């Protein structure tokens, strides 16, 4: 039988989003990072372009986390109380492409920090590192609606990636991104229709489509990962098929999900059958991330420096050309 490769022809491609702005562009970053732009499924360079490699962020908090696993201590303990130093360590020492700052301290049920305090932390991190920055709120909508507009303002022009906009609560953060030229994370609960709908709503407020990154909502390995995986595959096929409202790059909070689960945290003494805890946890995070890369994830948010290292190597390998001669 005659041999012919099977190459798909897609009608469209993923939009490109530029994170960060250099001095010339009105910000203070040393460089920008572009995500998206794929014109084929993940890493299938034999039939399309992957102009920008997926990137990996490390997650930091504005307050010292009380319940992070002790296996993080050797890496972060000395910087938990110093957000700027924490950010610097992630970039300089661990090689994060960028940093995600979670404004956990704003949580009304926690430290209840004021919008001004939060904005100051953002400034501190912007001064500490020169990579583009992702900033997300504490997750409590009302408070985030007070905090994020101020964050957007103090970081005006930096082209942050800010989050999150949800179907029930997107207006205030979208407006803030519009005014101060930031990018926005649009989060939908593993539902492709809500995902599209939210993008339409945001776009109706006049935020450009190439300023939006989709958070399709993911779960950890073993805790519903496959649902997010399949939604992402469908969204990406939709994007390639020409649906502009699904054509944004995707982001996933891998570290946040993984470090909640027992398999990451339980000690070997407690579960001898599961093997050594830290490596198991690193691989729980890595496996979640690597699986999601295969579904089209463009920005991975991780926590463990070793997971970051392994995931980045995996991306390096997958970015090697696989074009057939």
């Amino acid at each position, binding site marked *: 039988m005659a*041999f012919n490769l099977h190459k798909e022809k897609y009608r469209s491609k993923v939009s490109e989003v530029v994170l960060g702005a250099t001095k010339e562009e009105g910000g203070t970053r040393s460089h920008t990072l572009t995500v998206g732009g794929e014109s084929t499924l993940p890493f299938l360079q034999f039939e399309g372009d992957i102009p920008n490699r997926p990137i990996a962020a490390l997650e930091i908090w504005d307050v010292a986390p009380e319940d992070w696993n002790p296996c993080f201590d050797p890496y972060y303990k000395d910087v938990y109380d110093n957000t700027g130093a924490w950010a610097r360590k992630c970039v300089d020492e661990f090689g994060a492409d960028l940093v995600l700052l979670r404004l956990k301290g704003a949580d009304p049920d926690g430290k209840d920090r004021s919008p001004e305090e939060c904005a100051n932390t953002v400034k501190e991190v912007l001064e500490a590192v020169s990579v583009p920055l992702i900033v997300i709120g504490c997750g409590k909508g009302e408070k985030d609606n007070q905090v994020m507009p101020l964050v957007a303002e103090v970081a005006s022009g930096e082209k942050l990636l800010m989050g999150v906009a949800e179907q029930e609560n997107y207006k205030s953060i979208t407006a803030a991104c519009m005014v101060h030229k930031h990018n926005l994370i649009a989060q939908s609960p593993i539902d492709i229709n809500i995902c599209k709908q939210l993008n339409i709503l945001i776009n109706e407020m006049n935020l450009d489509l190439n300023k939006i990154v989709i958070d399709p909502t993911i779960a950890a390995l073993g805790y519903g990962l496959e649902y997010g995986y399949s939604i992402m595959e469908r969204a990406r096929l939709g994007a390639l098929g020409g649906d502009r409202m699904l054509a944004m790059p995707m982001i996933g909070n891998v570290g946040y999900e993984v470090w909640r689960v027992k398999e990451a945290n339980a000690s070997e003494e407690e579960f001898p059958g599961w093997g050594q805890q830290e490596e198991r946890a690193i691989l729980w995070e*890595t496996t979640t991330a690597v699986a999601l890369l295969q579904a089209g994830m463009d920005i991975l948010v991780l926590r463990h420096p070793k997971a970051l290292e392994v995931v980045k190597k995996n991306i390096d390998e997958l970015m*090697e050309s696989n074009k057939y001669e």
Partner: protein
Amino acid sequence: MGLTGLEIFKQLPRTNCKDCGSPTCLAFAMALANGKASLDKCPHVTDEARENLDSASAPPIKLIKVGTGDQTVELGDETELFRHDKKFYHPTAVAILVSDQEDVEAKVNQIKELEFERVGLKFITDMVVVKNDSGDADTYKAAVEKAAALTDKALVLMAEDTGVMAKALEVAAGRKPLVYAATAENYEAMTALAKDKGCPLAVRGKGLEDTAALVEKVAALGYKELVVDTGERETSKVLADLTQVRRLAVKKRFRPLGYPTIAFTSKEDPLEEAAQATVYLSKYAGVVVMKTAEKQHILPLLSWRQNLFTDPQKPIQVEAKMYGVGDVNENSPLYITTNFSLTYYIVEGEVEASKVPSYIIAVNTDGISVLTAWAAGKLTGESIAAAMKKAEVEEKLAHKKVVIPGHVAVLSGSVEESTGGWEVLVGPREAAGIPKYAKANFA
């Protein structure tokens, strides 16, 4: 898919004798193409035509069996490129490599310990690959014999030298191992060996096209119990090849690649190796061969396999009813959760770990998790109260306290109301907090 009516028609006798029940050969061909008739109805087809047509109607990826007994591994027979289109049927076999130059007994025993219980399921690795690194036939035979004696898992015999392979098959052929591999250099003898012993055979080429050509040569020798290895070892090229093989088989019915695939990790660092294996498992490998046999390296991969191969249409559920964990009595605490099997088993495990005998009611949420069910209106004060009533809690328990999941603390009031005054206790958010919670409240 498959052949068109016209293509089938060309293979028929074209006499329009009507013995098949169709008015004409063409009508019969059309019925065949639409899956509305079976070829046996025509008594006049030639053997050659039958073979052509059978192979055209065969599944796009051949089902290949390796091993014997309960540990038989079934590979291939997939029909989809994406799990959301229907589902994936035959989970990628995870195989662990043992060299004939290492302590075979130690490694095989280590492999046997890779057994995990999770969410009510047992996760295991499927195959042991015994590799001929020594170059010596007797050493290899002894290693294979030892491995075969130590485990019932399906075996893969990995030796390029047909003399070495022949010797190992003397002791292992009965186990129906996968014979690895027929190559351009040895395929005639290797195919003869595998065929003679009735063992499945891996065919390794140099790249996709070369592999397809080699498979055709092997098939021409009359053997089709095959597994395909395109010979690539770099992550991105393997991904490309696995994707092409799957697409060509499923979308083009390209027969020379209509077999399950086998992929080998090349990374030495076990964490990088596990990441590489995750790529291959996600994207279509029939078998993935790993070197590490440490529990912490294998459990994540096996968990991902379980996730990926579940039916996306039907969440796995447990029966919606009240379960007793441990030696329960009328004073035992009562927990509420959902009947999503993942959620239920996590909670059950923690309740068990709390060492306080307890009841758990799995509320019927159509098999979805706590927050999903809450957001979908399936876990409500009323549905919880109804489930409690059905479980006859008032008759079985001497107290009126019920623990609800921390994530749905907002339901407290409505549960209290719907149950007519039960005391509602809000448990921790994550089930992992249950042992501590039980100790504080029920010990």
